[in-house]
């Protein structure tokens, strides 16, 4: 069971309080009705599924109930950082310079 830092509760909480919500930073197109079939496929089905650093969404569903974003290594399952929903994808990750 992972330990996840909720950026709203400002502390680490057990995974049982959270629900993963898939890849992050895939914005719903503002004029979605006008998207092509290809673009809709990319938006709705295609996923990065990286072996390494993933940007993903979580919801602290049994806690503060907020959605937020996390950066995690999918090989070690270690979290690099978490940040609030709506904040931009971090340009640089902590410890990435090393």
């Amino acid at each position, binding site marked *: *069971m*992972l*330990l996840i830092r909720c950026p709203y509760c400002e502390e680490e909480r*057990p995974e049982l309080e959270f*629900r993963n*919500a898939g890849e992050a930073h895939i*914005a*719903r197109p503002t*004029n*979605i*009705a006008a*998207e092509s*079939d290809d673009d*809709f496929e990319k938006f*709705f089905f295609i996923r990065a599924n990286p072996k390494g650093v993933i940007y993903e*969404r979580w*919801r602290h*569903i049994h806690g503060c*109930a*907020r*959605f937020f974003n996390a950066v995690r290594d999918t090989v*070690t*399952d*270690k979290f690099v950082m978490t940040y609030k*929903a*709506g904040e931009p994808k971090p340009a640089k990750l902590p410890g990435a310079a090393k």
Partner: protein
Amino acid sequence: MNAMFRISGAGRLSQAKTASFSFDDKSYTGIEGDTLASALLANGVHLVGRSFKYHRPRGFLSAGAEEPNALVQIVRDDARKTPNVRATVQELYDGLTANSQNRWPSLAFDVGAVNDLASPMFSAGFYYKTFMWPKWAWKDLYEPKIRAAAGLGVSPEKPDPDHYAARYAHCEVLVLGGGAAGIAAALAAAETGVRVILADEQAEFGGSLRFESGARIDGQQGYAWAQGAIAKLKAMDNVRVLSRTTAFGYYAQNFVGLVERVSDHLKSPGRDLARERLWQVRANRVVIATGAIERHMVFANNDRPGVMLASAARTYLNHYGVAVGRNVGVYTANDSAYAAAIDLKKAGVNIAAIVDLRDNPSGPVIDEARALGIEINFGRAVVSAGGKLRVSSMTVQPKNGGGGRTIPVDAILMSAGWTPSVHLFSQSRGKVAFNDETRRFVPGTYAQDCISVGACNGTDGLDATVDEAYAAGAKAAKEAGGKAGKSAKPKVDAGESWSRGMLGAAPGAGPGTTVKAFVDFQNDVTAKDIRQAVHEGMHSIEHVKRFTTNGMATDQGKTSNMHGLAIAAEELGKPIPQVGLTTFRAPYTPVTFGSIVGHARGALFDPTRRTATHGWAARQGAVFEDVGHWKRAWYFPKAGEDMHAAVNRECVTVRKVGGLFDASTLGKIEVVGPDAAKFMELLYTNPWEKLETGRCRYGIMLREDGFIYDDGVVGRLAPDRFHVTTTTGGAPRVMNHMEDYLQTEFPHLNVWLTSITEQWAVIAVQGPKSRDIIAPLVEGIDMSDEGMPHMSVREGKICGVPTRLFRMSFTGERGFEVNVPADYGEAVWEALWAEGQKHGATAYGTETMHVLRAEKGYIIVGQDTDGTVTPNDAGLDWAVGKKKTDFVGIRGLTRPDLVAKGRKQLVGLKTKDPKVVLEEGAQIVADPKQPIPMKMIGHVTSSYWSENCGRSIALALVAGGRDRMGQTLYVPMPNGTIEVEVTGMVFVDEKGERLNG
């Protein structure tokens, strides 16, 4: 009674406290504090089990959790039979009953032992190469025989009356292992004031101090020091000391699973005491102090009862006061067996000879053994053990060959060296490293905030171990926020130290030999099996392991893995690290399902949700059905009625008079805020902005891919407030779906969602008399058709309590849904029931609800739709706002396949024979004469006998269904084909006049 092999003056048990027990129906006496193993050995019993494949007689190899051989069935009573219990771990209690396993008719005479004679046929992986002809014989002949022969103990036959507890715990420093290292680390950490948990699998703390007679710490004998230190730790508020507790799994982020055996050692545990308790511990730092496990020597017939690890014999003597024999041989490749020989000799046991593979070792223990007059043979090997049900001799030869001699013995103690217990470190995803000099795997790269200390870290010697452990404990505590404590590092006055030894087959069992020199005892894997696997192309240790099953028995290779690896490496001509080490997987030792499950059994397996009127329905004799977590009243049979009769009566009564139905389980969400209507526009296909306050609308929710996700009636209570209903099963995921969009896609909207499913009990009152039933109880609401038309909602009072009163219908009749605060639900129901009785109304359940809605062609999401159905498919295009430019699902709906011709559409079906009721799920074809496989064009989604229509009715998804009105289609069933006609979906009151009737 004093057992034959109990040595007076030896051991730590109080001889006064005896306990009687039975093994294979024979009674014995032991002492409290014994394990079953020590008690049997005290009585001279070595033969306790049979091996898996060859059914060879087996005794005790060890005195601990690594035991591969001595597995027994413990029987407390009829329902408390536990298979595969290690006799070396099971503590004795008065009245314990144990039986041997995997033998017939008896342990001493086991028919299955014929396998041993035929063993050349049963080489590694033999079953992959045969049993293939004739083809049918595998299933009917060979496999049943193999299955019956396999397996060790027997499953319990009755539900387990014991219960299991569970607990989450947090600490700064978790110390795993309570030997000298673990205790030293715990002492250091505890002094800093942080929370410390110290756990050990044994009943008593001390680890190897239990047998190391030479250890002295802080001026005391080692074991006594350990007991004093534990007493000190137990007295501290910040420390929890757990004995009989095995850390079995090391998970991500220092989350460790431990099982505490609470009552298996007690004579009468009592009802309140759990059998076991699961601890799930989150630790800031973990100190791993799990010690090392002695390895056996791999030589011919090394599995004979009486052949055991030297440290085990020492434990039996020094802790339990039991001699494992009277005339004992010793076979070793390192120093540690000497200490066993010395202790036994001093206790009066004859040591027939020590056989040491090494050419010219020297050291104080060797000198001491020699001084005691023990015969020592250097550079020699034991090439075979004699005897069958008990070892009777050992054959000794020069290790490079040459003439040998046979020495009579009744036990052989062996030691090939010690394997660090890196299991938990490895489970933490740390990477082990092979030390070429000491030829062992030790912790290399760490992946988590933990540290290994002592023997499991490859640290030799008590002094070095305590130093290292104490420092590690202090450091871990400091890193976890502990304050500097006063240092009280234990001082080691004397300790034992040994290292080295050998890996792989001993002389006489090496390449080219075919003797049975066991590597894995329980699974009967010999050195030659491993070599054969390599010959057959198994070059990875994982292949070798799987092909031979080495290390896959219940002891998980604690004694066999390293030998197996070394033999494979030798055969491949590669260094050990290049052949690899199999990964260690949880659990460290087997753990019961019960301990993992904990409280989650029976009523606590899953929450059972009941509505406010559940008690009333139960008293009326309702039959309930499971819908998600809910129990819902299914139908209300009167005396003598079966389900069919009850449902027919309920259906007719509702349309004729009226009925009451508990709709409380439907999900309810209050959507509040100035942007509430805008939000509804985006989440549902329907338009909402123009819905007037006080009016309701049936809404459809899609997923982004365009398929129907949920539906329900929505009432507008105020310009900024909607009362949304969802399906029963859909409630949680609809809420999550809405929150997801609100928080992440439409966060600019000022609107909030609150689940009110359980705030309101909902009583549907349906039927021509529904208004007459409700009206007398209502205050402050105009109940006329003008004042409260179909699809409207009003707030007021009923029975003196607040209500949200909906006028809506899922039956096609005039209908209402009375929402009242849940605690009032049952009392209001009773009041409505009393009114209803005046008119002859009925209570009805979910089955009647289903029939009545099907008569009207109303769909049930999840039954008539299945996640692949669009609004158009379901005939609900009218509910999709044509002018809307956005809602969830708008783009998915226009994908090529979703607008293609020939999609399955929801239609009605009437059987040609009105008495025939189709089966839900039955498949539909256009041509009944075609051969199998048939082209199926649809299936029946809902089907009922409609007493109101006097015939059966059905809904179905049929390819191009709306273009097939009036067509005859076919439903092929096992006992004949049923003809059906495609119809519209409304079977009752097509014009909808009854809504106001």
